[in-house]
Structures are given as C-alpha cells and as structure tokens.
C-alpha cells in the first residue's frame, strides 16, 4: 500500500518563544483541498502554529522551532527553502483587513509586481480572476482605481483574500478572518471559504466554534500548547473523545 500524501504535516513540532514552550510535540497531517479549523482558548498556541506554516514567526526574537513542518512532503524549515518562494505557495489572511493605501487594483497585483511581473494584460487578468474567486468582482469592477480604503470592512477582507490568491498559492492560512466583520460579511467570507476549498488547502484559526462547524472538514483543538484532539469536524462536534475538548466546545471550560 502506498503511503498517503498529505499537503501539510507537522512532525513532533515544538516551538519556543525564548524560554516559553509554546507548542509541545505537535503531530498533524492535513489533506489537500480540505478546510481545517484550529480552535482553542486564547494563548493555546493555535495562531503560533498557523504561522509556522509560512514561517511568519521567524521575525519574532527568540522564536525557534524543533521538529518538521512539511509542505508537499518538503521540510519548509530546511535551509535551502527560500521564504519568499514559500510565501507564494502559502498565502495568508489576517484578522483585521489590512489593504494597502492604494487602489483596489494595485492591492490585488501588489505581490505580482514585487515578483517582477509588469505586463499590463497579465496583471489585469490576474486581478479579475482573483477578485472573482474572492466573490468581489461584481462589487468593484467599475471602481478598480478607487482607493481600497473606501471599501467596507467585509469588502476589504475579501480584497485581502484576493490579494493572497494573486500569487497562486496552494495553501491559504486564515487567522480569524471574520472576527472583525459583521454577520453578513462573515457569512460571505464563510461561503467564500467553502468555495475556495475546491482549489486550495485552507487552515483557519477561529474563536468562533459555530464558524469552525460551518466551514471546516477537520478541526484541531489546542490547549496550552498541546494538540488535544484532531478529527473530522462532524465527529468532534457530535462526539469528542477528550473531556477537555467536550468542555471547550460546550462552553463549560475552566
């Protein structure tokens, strides 16, 4: 029997902020084109873990990892890996929409321009494709040159998703992508995640348990730096194996 190929894997991953042991021996394997939600109380390590997948933690002083993070079976902490190349492959969307103070169009093609792509037709094609993917095209197609800051919060977040998609990643990391949005915008982003998983592998950190239920195929529950439970979302939300998971998802924690 051939060994199953996973899109993302962590093997015996430990992470430290100086002397603080933030992630403790994490092992996880995520399949391609699935949505995995990371849940857990504040400070449990879920965002730290998410950021190890595109090495966003590298900038933090005193931060170090042990163990392996594999993307398509390649260790992304290997010395030969170029971080800029890695980030093309692994896009990221943050909690607060953070468009640049530039036009909508410039925001979407920013990454491509940095990569040296200048041809107008290529940039335009990429802008339309990703804005469509982010379900924003119809709302902005007539005002691409307007400032991105004039968009609503929900639109700005979808713009940031379009920007992340422009460099054609295969993985999308989302750190509480809807927590700063109103319910309608949240629903739009959630629908978008549901659509995007047809093409991308998505990992989402969320504080909102209902959101994890609605959007994800798999859920991982973290507690004090440990991965307590990882299973299909259906299974976790109907019959969690660990008492800590049960207490957390039913709101009886602590």
């Amino acid at each position, binding site marked *: 029997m051939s060994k199953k190929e996973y899109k993302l894997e962590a093997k015996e991953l430990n992470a430290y902020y100086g002397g603080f042991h933030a992630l403790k021996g994490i092992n996880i394997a995520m399949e391609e084109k699935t949505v995995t939600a990371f849940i857990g109380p504040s400070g449990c390590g879920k965002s730290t873990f998410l950021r190890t997948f595109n090495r966003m933690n590298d900038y933090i002083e005193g931060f170090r990892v042990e163990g392996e993070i594999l993307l398509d079976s390649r260790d992304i902490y290997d010395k030969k890996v170029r971080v800029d190349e890695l980030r093309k492959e692994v896009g990221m969307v943050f909690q607060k929409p953070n468009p640049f103070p530039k036009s909508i169009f410039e925001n979407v093609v920013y990454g491509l321009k940095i990569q040296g792509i200048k041809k107008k037709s290529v940039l335009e094609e990429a802008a339309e494709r990703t804005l469509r993917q982010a379900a924003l095209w119809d709302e902005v197609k007539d005002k691409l040159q307007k400032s991105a800051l004039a968009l609503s919060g929900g639109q700005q977040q979808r713009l940031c998703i379009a920007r992340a998609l422009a460099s054609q990643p295969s993985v999308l990391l989302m750190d509480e992508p809807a927590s700063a949005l109103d319910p309608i915008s949240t*629903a739009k982003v*959630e*629908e978008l995640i*549901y659509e995007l998983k047809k093409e991308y592998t998505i990992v989402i950190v969320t504080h909102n348990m*209902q959101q994890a*239920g*609605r*959007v994800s195929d798999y859920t991982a529950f973290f507690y004090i730096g440990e991965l307590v439970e990882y299973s299909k*979302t*259906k299974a976790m*939300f*109907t019959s969690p194996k660990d008492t800590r998971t049960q207490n957390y998802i039913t709101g009886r924690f602590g």
Partner: protein
Amino acid sequence: MPHIDIELEKLQEKLLEMWDVVDYQLVSSREAVLNHDLELTRKVVKLGKKVNRFDVKIDRQCENFFALFNPVAVDLRQVLATLKINANLERIGDTAEGICRIVEKLKEPVSKELAEESRLLEMYDKALSMFTAARKVFVTYDAEAAREVLKQDKLLNKIYRKSDKVIASYMSENPEGVETGLHLYNIIKKIERVGDQVTNIAEEIIFYHDAKVMKHKSRKKKDKE
C-alpha cells in the same frame, strides 16, 4: 447556493428517498393482502432493513446538522420536523411489514366480499392517498392541502370503529373463518395506525412551514388554524 441550503437539500433528498421505499412497502402490502402474494410479503419484510438504515442515517444527518450549523427559525423547524417525519416513516414501514407478516399467516386471500363488507380496501386506498398527499405537500408546500390530509384521517377512524362489529358477525356466521377474521381485524387496526402516522407527518410539515403546532389539538381547533 449557501452551504447551509445545500445541506438542508441533502437532508430533504434523503428523506424523500426513504419516503419512496416506505411507499413501495405500503402499496405492496395492499397487493399482498388482496392476492395472498407471499413473494411480495418477503420483499416488503426485506425492505424493512433498508428503511432502518435510512432511519439511522437521517438521524445522524440531523445530529450533524444541529452540531455544525446551529440552525434557527425555519431551518431549525425543518430539521426538527425531519427527525419526527423520519420516525413516523420508519413506523409506517414497520406497519406495512407487520401486515405482510399477518398475510403470511393467512391460509388464503381475504375474500372480496369480506374485504368489501369490512371496507378494508376503502381504508387502504384512503391511507395510501393520504400518504401520497403528505409527500406532495412536503415537496411543494400548500397550507390547505396539508390541512386536508389531517381531515382525511376521520374516515379511517370511522371505519375502524365499526369494523369490530362487522368482523364479529362474520366470525359468528363462519366459525371456520375465525382465524381469518382475527387476522383481518388486525390488518384494519394497523391501517388505522398508518392514518395516525401520516397525520403526524402532516402536522410536522405544517409546523415546519407555518410554525404552528397542530398536534394534540381538537378537530375544531385544527380546522380553525
């Protein structure tokens, strides 16, 4: 289509699939009674297992839906109604199976005269038409048609109430047919139950669409609502 609607649609599709299997069981049980068709009775009994699997599957789908989508308002009522319709469909399937087991005990088909006198066929046809009408209003909701299903149960109750006398007199006139009479009475009782179960289903459909609770209400109140 929003993700939640896709899941609700899947739930409805699964319930309708089950509905059709139970419909086949019910129609076949009627044929089996009239023709003493033992091959058909075996088929109906065998399908019971399939219906049980639907029952478990739909329960599980509803459980998952509650856990993952935290439904409210009409979505919540749809899933609650689905759970109860599922249970009633499973019971109707069981009833059809029960009738077939009685047929297996009968030595010959129920005679036309006796079937007519006891109004067995009339009952069966009414129960079947109620069942079909309920499926129709489940798919395309029509408030009036749903309430019509509730009213139709009256006839089944009426025939059932009178059937004991008819069958008692048949048995006293035909001492050799006591066993047949008892079996027939049991079948009639079961069809009357089907009427009640379809009524429950129609009440759940009204609850789902109109948010009105019809169960345990007097006939008069039901007519008013």
